[in-house]
Each structure stands twice: as C-alpha cells, then as structure tokens.
C-alpha cells in the first residue's frame, strides 16, 4: 500500500472534463430551472448586442455624409463647413512648390424628396459635386465606364458613378431627369458614367462647377480644394505648411463631426443602461439560483469532499456550471439581439425619417459588437456564481452532511440594514442638494436598497404579513414565517422585483416630465398657422433649402400676412460642433415663441440685431460650457468671429441640440448662407386655413424638398408620434420584469422543493391541498408586495434624481408624481408575483403525502 501521492500532473484535464460533464448533467437534470436562469443572461446580452450592432452603423452613416469626393492627397475645407471664395486659398496652394495641382469643388450631400423623377429610382440621398472639367483631371482622374466626361463650358450635363444604377437602374447615359435645387427643379442629362473608388460611397452626381453653384445658390463659391502633391513630397510637412499659410479658418483632411452625433449617443447610452440593468438582474438571478443549488446539493458536495475533493475542485464544479449557463445565455442572447437589432433598425428608420433624416442604415458586424457580449455575458455569470461557488468550497465535509444553522444569516441581515440605510441616506442627501451628484444619488439609492433588502425582509414581512393574513387566514401566517425564514433569498427575489417595478415607475415619471416639457415647447414652436418643412428638421446638414424667391412668392399670396424663414449653417466653436439657425428678426416673434431659460425676448432680439449675438440652447450652453453674457468665438467662412450669448432659450426643434440662433444678416455675412430651410407663415385674421394651405402647396410644386402643414395639425401629429414612441421605453422597462418574474418563480419553486417534507407533514396532520396551495400563494403575494413597495420607493427616488440632473443640461422639468405609473407598477408587480406562484403552489398541493415525508 503506497502513501505517496498519486497525483498525475497531466491528469488535470480529466478532472475538469469530469466536472464539466457533471455540470452539464446537473443542468440537464433541472431543465426548467436551467432555462429560467439562462434567460437571465439572455435579455441583457440581447440588448447589448443589438445596441452594438446598430450604433456604429448609425455613426458611420452620419460620418459618411461628410465624406468628400475623391481620395486626393490633401483636402482643404472651411472650419465652419461653409463655402468660401476660392481665390485666396488657391493662391496659397499654388505658391507651395510641393503641390502638383489643385482644384476647387463645390459639393453638397442632400436628401431627395419622395416625389422625385421616376428615373431616379430608389435613390434617397445623393451628393452633387461641382467640378471644373478643365482642371479636375490634373488632380483626380475619373475612370469612365461609359459615355464621356464633362466638357468645359457645358451646362445641364451630369456624369454619375456606376454604382448609382444599383438603386436607379433606369438611369443610363442619355437619361434626362429633373433635380431639386435651391432655385426649384432643374433638368439634367446623363452624359457618362464612371467607376467609383469605393462602391459604398454616397451616389455622386458630377456636374460643372457653375451648375453646382447655381443649384446650391452659391455663386462663385466652393467648399473644398483638393490638392495633389508632387511625387516624393512629405505629406505631413506640406500639410503643416499649408495649414500655417491658410490660418485657423481652414481644415486640412479633417471632417467636422455632425451635431446630431451627441444625441444619437445619448439614445444609445440609455439603451446600454437598460442592458446593464438587465444583466445586473441576471446576475442576481444566477446568484440566487446557485446559492440554492449549493444548499440543495450540499450532500453531494460533502461526499465529494469526504472522498478527497479539494475546496478548489468543489468551487470549480459550481463555477463551470455558471460558465456553461453564461455561454449558453450569451449565444441565445446574441441570436435574439440580432433580431432585436433588425427590428430596432426599422423602428429607428421610420421614426428618424419623421424627425431627422439618417439615410439607409446597416447593421455593423464589427469585432466590438461581438466581443462585448461574448466577454460580458459569461463574465457576469461567472462573477454571479463565484460567491456561491466559494461558499460551496468552504463547506467542511461535515457541514455539508448536516443542516445549516440560521444564526449567521440574522447577523448579516442587521449589517446589511445599516450599510444599506447609510447608502440611502447619502443618496437622499445628494438628490436634495440638487447638485450634479443627483444622478449618482439616484444610482446609489438603488444600490442602498439592494444592500438593505436582507435586513428589510423581516420588518416588511411583519408589516405586510397582516395584510396577507387578512386574505389567507392562518395560511398567511405560515407564509409570513416561510418568507422570514430565508431572508437572503427573499431579499434577492424582492430586489429583482424591485428593480423591475422601479424601472416602470422611473419611465412613467420621466416620460410624463418630458411630455410636459415637449408640449410647452411644441406650443411655442408651432405658433404659426402654416409651416413649410424640409425633409428633416432639427438637423439640417443634408437639407436642400430654397432661395428667397419662394418666400417672396408665398408672401404675395392674398391670405398671407407674415412669412418668416429659418436658415441653417454648421460650424465649430473651440473644436466642438455647433449648429446655427439664422432667424428673420423682423418676423420671427410673430410666428414663434421661444422658451427663455435666461435672459428675455426683448433684450435678446434687440441684441441680435445690434451685433454678433447668439441665443444659445440651454443644452448647447452646458455642452459648450457657455453662460449667459459670455463671448465665444465661432469659426466662419470669413474666419473666426466673436459672438455674445444674449440669452439661453430653446424651442422644440432645437432643445436637444447644440444650437445657436443668430440673425440672418450675420449668417449671410459670416457663412454666405441665404438659403431658407424652413418657412413659417401667419395668415390674415379670418382667412380660410385649408384654402391657404392648398395655395401654398401649389407654389411648392417646384420644390419637392418641402412639404406644407397646418402647424397645429403637425404639432399634434408630432406629439402623438412622440407619445407612441415612448411606448418603446415602457416595453423595455417591462422586459426588465421578465427576469424579475423568473426570479420569483425560481425562489418559490425552490422553497417548495426544500420544504417538501414539511409540506408532507402539514398534509399528514390534516392540512388540505387548498391550504397548502394558499400557503405558497400567500408567500408569493408577500414577496410581491415587498418587492413592489421597494420598487415604487426606488423608482420615485431615481426618477427624481434623474430629472433634477437634467436641469444641469438645461432642461428644467418640474417633477410630477407619476400616480398612474405607481399604481400600475404596484399592480403589475403583485400580479407578476401571484402568477409566478401558480405553478409552485400547484405542485406543492399535488405532493403525495408519503413520498413527501420520505423526501430526501
């Protein structure tokens, strides 16, 4: 007989393999529970994956819209993104001896109206590029696949990239079509097709520079100079030289970010937050399940320890099980996430088409999109099962063969109450000070509640117990005792439900606050009688407007009293993107009422006409770090200019953007923009609005990029659409209830299993089936009330904190107590608990007395 170790170092794999087999079989042996626990991971992963699939595509699309024509050595654009006089720039470029050739372009990407020429097929967005046919070939050579290139002095001709025909098959050499321009429709003929460098690029329509300047109402202006360097020239050095010579008003090889990006990011941050919350709940559920698993299996585990398994090996068996569930849940979650992303895409597309154009989006299958869920999902499962696994490893073999003492749990409950109570107290203090820490306070509040939960179980079961007893008689007492017996388990179950209920209350509170704000803004914004809107409002990067003749024609209509127009430009200040709206100072206040946060209308408008003043949106001010009265420098086509913040104010079209309102005079002077992108019309008193609308519409026949609406109807529709869009938030909040429901089901099922013998005893001494059923249902109800009550409290606190935090980005919203939301959340929480109790209650009632008594 040998006493030497027989450990085979090469045999570690055998142990791991056997542990994995064992884990798989244990999991397979409890299919329902495994499914429920796995689902906990599925939801979070699905959300994360879909966000990562959709987000880069959206960002990419916005960035793409900024892409220039060609892949030359150096592109020079204006910092403000506006047009400029080519002469001084070309002068600098031509003087540089490393430059071989340079050409000025005027290009603009814009959205085609829905009722465009049939020959344009499914094209939704194009880039019109004006080039000088005589010069462009020296810098960039178009590879013609068909037809010919433009000839100098030619007008009304266009060459198109051959990829255009994918979307517009009818468009061939010789086709004639009419195209929307700032001055109305113009006719063009296709004379040739070229092969584009990248098939993914936005479809390009190359026209002569003068045609482009006419179409965009930018006579003798360009917005890009493309430069070709001599062979062997040092790109970086030349770029530096040129930059120095041109000064800060010009950017080399850099595309300004669009102002819509931040608001996309905010939306996706919200989604990611929900995903994180769902995963957090998933972790809870896994933690709870594995704690139970360890208790349930303590005999098996004790035996393994007795026959020589080390602590580490025991810990490993449980971890392997957690990991398997994590991987399984992740894979299923990713499939679900893909479907969700596809649905989300079509949802965003239809919503986005309404408010702001974002083009055709694609799901982006990038490495991050896959890596994040693949890492996070299994990791969450692993972390959540770690503590139960460690506890399993720490069991002495004997402990495992004996029942567990409950003394330690009580002790822990007291500490959790103290620690959680402290967190909640700090959180409330943070939220009441109304500082920027309010958001952190809100999160801390939830954390505190979760920590305090084990300590709250006992008082809560005493508090709500009589209520349950009222309904369930003596069985209610038993239920109360059963809940209080496992405070840890009841706490986790209650916490899961709490987070679900809190999300609903939070969404309800925030939606009602936002809708109130939205309604106020809408009333001010749509104060005119008729509005003429471009295809995209709020973001004007891709909008093609109209020259002044349209406004003039409308003003001439007999019923029209006032026409006020908006003009748009994009620029940067201190490197950050800023949208500019040019308003007509003489008429703006007749058609629209801004909501002033700081400053007042009279002074602000007086200041706008007096000099370079800007009314900045509160969000913009907080993003850019500007205060009322500050001077700030913005990049313009004429170089940097100093503007003064004359007020902080917003309307519905600007409130979620970084926007400044300036006078149209300043916009024309600094940005060379005189194109109207939005028109607001007031009618003479007593005029027939519908008749006036059709008159306006008939004038718009030559401007398919615009549509006319009765302002009130449009505002109502918009509010309605927004309201229905908020349903999505409720749906996501409700999704969070799913893991909560699973948690309840899990806990109740386990409680019944664990008490099988006890239930047999109750039946043996004369308890009826229905009494047993009522006992379990009472337990479910008590857990439901416990979780829902904590949830309502947390939901109110969190939403209060978040709404307080919003005032720091300039959205002052009064907190309205979401009474309906609270009642709904309470009812949903309790109903969820009761329905989760149905199955366990039934199986408890169905137990065979003899077998239950002998249950091991």
């Amino acid at each position, binding site marked *: 007989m040998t006493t030497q170790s027989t450990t085979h170092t*090469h*045999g570690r794999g055998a142990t791991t393999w056997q542990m994995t087999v*064992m884990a798989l079989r244990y999991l397979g042996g409890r299919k329902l529970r495994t499914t429920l626990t796995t689902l906990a991971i599925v939801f979070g992963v699905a959300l994360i994956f879909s966000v990562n699939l959709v987000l880069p595509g959206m960002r990419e699309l916005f960035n793409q819209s900024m892409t220039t024509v060609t892949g030359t050595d150096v592109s020079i654009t204006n910092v403000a993104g506006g047009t400029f006089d080519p002469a001084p720039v070309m002068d600098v470029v031509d003087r540089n001896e490393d430059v071989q050739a340079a050409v000025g372009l005027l290009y603009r990407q814009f959205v085609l109206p829905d009722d465009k020429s049939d020959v344009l097929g499914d094209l939704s967005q194009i880039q019109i590029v004006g080039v000088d046919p005589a010069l462009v070939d020296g810098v960039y050579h178009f590879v013609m696949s068909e037809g010919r290139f433009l000839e100098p002095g030619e007008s009304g001709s266009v060459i198109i990239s051959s990829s255009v025909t994918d979307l517009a098959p009818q468009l061939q050499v010789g086709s004639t079509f009419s195209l929307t321009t700032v001055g109305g429709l113009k006719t063009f003929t296709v004379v040739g097709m070229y092969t584009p460098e990248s098939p993914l690029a936005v479809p390009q329509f190359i026209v002569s520079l003068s045609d482009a300047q006419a179409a965009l109402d930018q006579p003798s202006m360009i917005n890009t100079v493309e430069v070709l360097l001599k062979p062997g020239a040092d790109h970086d050095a030349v770029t530096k030289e040129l930059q120095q010579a041109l000064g800060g008003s010009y950017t080399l090889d850099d595309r300004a970010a669009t102002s819509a990006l931040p608001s996309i990011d905010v939306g996706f941050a919200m989604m990611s937050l929900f995903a994180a919350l769902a995963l957090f709940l998933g972790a809870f559920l896994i933690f709870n399940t594995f704690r139970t698993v360890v208790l349930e299996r303590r005999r*098996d585990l004790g*035996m393994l320890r007795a026959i*020589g398994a080390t602590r580490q090996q025991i810990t490993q068996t449980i971890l392997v099980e957690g990991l398997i569930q994590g991987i399984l849940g992740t894979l299923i979650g990713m499939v679900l996430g893909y479907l969700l992303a596809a649905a989300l895409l079509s949802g965003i597309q239809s919503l986005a088409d309404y408010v702001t154009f974002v083009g055709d989006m694609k799901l982006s299958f990038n490495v991050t999109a896959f890596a994040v869920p693949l890492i996070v999902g299994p990791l969450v499962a692993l972390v959540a099962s770690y503590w139960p696994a460690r506890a399993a490893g720490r069991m002495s*073999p*004997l402990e495992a063969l004996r029942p567990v003492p409950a003394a330690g749990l009580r002790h822990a409950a007291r500490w959790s109450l103290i620690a959680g109570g402290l967190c909640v107290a700090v959180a409330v203090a943070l939220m009441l000070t109304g500082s920027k820490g309010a958001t952190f306070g809100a999160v801390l509040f939830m954390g505190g509640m979760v920590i305090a939960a084990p300590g709250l179980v006992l008082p809560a079961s005493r508090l709500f117990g009589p209520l349950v007893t009222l309904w369930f008689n003596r069985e209610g007492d038993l239920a109360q005792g059963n809940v209080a017996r496992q405070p840890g388990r009841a706490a986790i179950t209650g916490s899961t439900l709490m987070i679900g209920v809190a999300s609903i209350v939070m969404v309800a509170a925030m939606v009602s606050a936002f809708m109130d704000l939205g309604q106020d803004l809408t009333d001010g914004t749509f104060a005119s009688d008729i509005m003429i809107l471009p295809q995209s409002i709020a973001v004007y990067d891709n909008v093609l407007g109209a020259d002044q003749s349209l406004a003039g024609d409308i003003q001439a209509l007999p019923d029209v009293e006032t026409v006020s127009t908006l003009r748009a430009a994009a620029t940067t200040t201190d490197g950050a993107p800023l949208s500019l709206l040019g308003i007509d100072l003489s008429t703006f206040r007749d058609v629209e009422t801004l909501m002033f946060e700081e400053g007042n209308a009279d002074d602000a408008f007086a200041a706008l006409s007096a000099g370079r003043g800007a009314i900045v949106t509160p969000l913009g001010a907080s993003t850019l770090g500007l205060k009322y009265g500050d001077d700030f420098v913005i990049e313009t086509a004429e170089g940097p200019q100093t503007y003064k913040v004359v007020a902080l104010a917003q309307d519905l079209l600007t409130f979620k953007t970084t926007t400044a309102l300036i006078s149209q005079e300043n916009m024309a002077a600094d940005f060379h923009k005189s194109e109207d992108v939005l028109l607001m019309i007031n009618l003479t008193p007593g005029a027939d609005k519908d008749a006036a609308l059709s008159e306006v519409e008939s004038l718009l026949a030559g401007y398919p990029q615009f549509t006319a609406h009765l302002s009130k109807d449009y505002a109502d529709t918009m509010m309605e659409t927004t309201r229905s869009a908020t349903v999505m938030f409720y749906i996501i909040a409700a999704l969070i209830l799913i893991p909560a429901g699973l948690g309840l089901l899990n806990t109740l099922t386990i409680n019944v299993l664990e008490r099988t013998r006890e239930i047999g005893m109750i039946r043996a001494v004369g308890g009826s089936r229905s009494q047993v059923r009522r006992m379990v249902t009472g337990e479910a109800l008590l857990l439901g009330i416990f979780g829902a009550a904590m949830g309502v409290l947390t939901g109110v606190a969190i939403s209060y904190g978040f709404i307080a935090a919003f005032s720091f980005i300039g959205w002052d919203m009064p907190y309205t107590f979401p009474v309906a939301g609270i009642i709904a959340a309470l009812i949903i929480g309790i109903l969820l608990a009761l329905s989760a109790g149905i199955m366990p209650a039934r199986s408890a009632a169905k137990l065979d007395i003899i077998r239950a008594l002998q249950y091991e």
Partner: protein
Amino acid sequence: MNIVRTESLTKKYGTPDQPIYALNDVNLEVAEGEFLAIMGPSGSGKSTLLYLLGGLDRPTSGKVWVRDAELSKLGDDALSHLRRTALGFVFQFFNLVPVLTARENVAMPLILDGVPRPEALARADDALALVNMADRGTHRPSELSGGQQQRVALARAMIARPAVVLADEPTGNLDSRSSDEMVQMLRQTVDASGQTMILVTHDPRVAAYADRIVFLKDGKIADDNRLKGQGSPDQIRDQLSKVALA
C-alpha cells in the same frame, strides 16, 4: 503496527458554561489489517469518532494519526489528498452523485486525483466487478436498488486502494439480505487485501463479523472487545445492552 491512533481525542459542543461532550478523552489504536466495529447507543459519539478519524471534522482537543500523519497538522488540501488516497468512505445514505453513472461515481476519487479518465474508468470497472456490479456500470444511482447503490459506494471507497476504509452505518438503510451481503463483502475485502476497516454500526449481526468491537458511551470508550471474528450476534447484543444500562 498501528495504522490509526488517537490521543486524548475530545470533541465539545455547546457553551463553555454548559459543555456537551460528543467525545471525551478517547485513546484508541487500530492495527493495520484490523476489522474494527464501533458500537454504542444513539448519541454516544460513534459517528463523531469516525468523522474525526477520517479528517472530516476537527477535534476540540487531542490528536489523530493516520499512519505517520498527525491530522491537525495538515492543511485542508493535504487533508483532502489524504482522504482521496489513504482513506475510503462508505456512508449510510450511499451519497452517490445522482447525475453520474455507477462507474463514474466509482472513478471519482481517481479523477479528483488527476488520473486520466479512461484509466480511471477502467479501474472503476474492475472495482465494480469485485462487488459483483460489473453489469451495472452505466446505470445511474436512481436506477439501482439500495443494496446495489451501497455496493457501488463500497467500490468507490476501495478504488484508490486506501489503507483504511471508514464506514458509517453502511447497512443502516438496507434490508437484511442486502445487509448480509454487504458485511460479507466488507469482511472479504479486509481478508483479501489486508486493508483496515473501521465501521460504525448498531447492528450486532454486522458487528459479529468484526475482529474487535469498541463500545462507546457518553463519548468515552466503555468497553473494548477483541472477538477475532468469533463473536455471536446474541453475545454482542447482550454486551451492548449492558454498556447502555451501566
């Protein structure tokens, strides 16, 4: 040569004011190859003694040696290693892993020790053959009778060829026929392999197979009886009741 030895072994529960002694100053020596039965009334400390000998529990005071190793000096991993290499356990409630087949259950101590799986399973088949369970290797515990499960548990206890097998009421959950089969198998094992067997039982018919019976009462050794396998169940029963009533 003593393979197991205790010195003033004491296990105390309860408060310092009102201590309850599960074991009180027990000195015991077990020779290599000996078949020892531990008997005594309920609460006399039989199982506690067995658990302490097997390193499943730690004594309040006193020492246990298994071969040359003093258990209190071993860390948890070393103790685990000792259990899977030098000790074998058989429990009253079989304690087989329900999701593993009979042969996988038997192979477990080897697998835990890092023996490659095919080798471990082959040796498990051999061990199952010794307990006449060769044809049931692929069955799960739930598909086996109580007697069959206990034979699987015995095979598992023997597979690492431990020097000492510790059995806690191994027949406590079996009918009389299975019980007889089991104890005969235990006896044969000792005779054939020279392993040491320490068995806790309250059944005189089982104890009758032992070389030596130690009677415990209130945590102390009340009697130590060397039968050399010659005792009769009736004689043992008389002695047990005498100890209990003393």
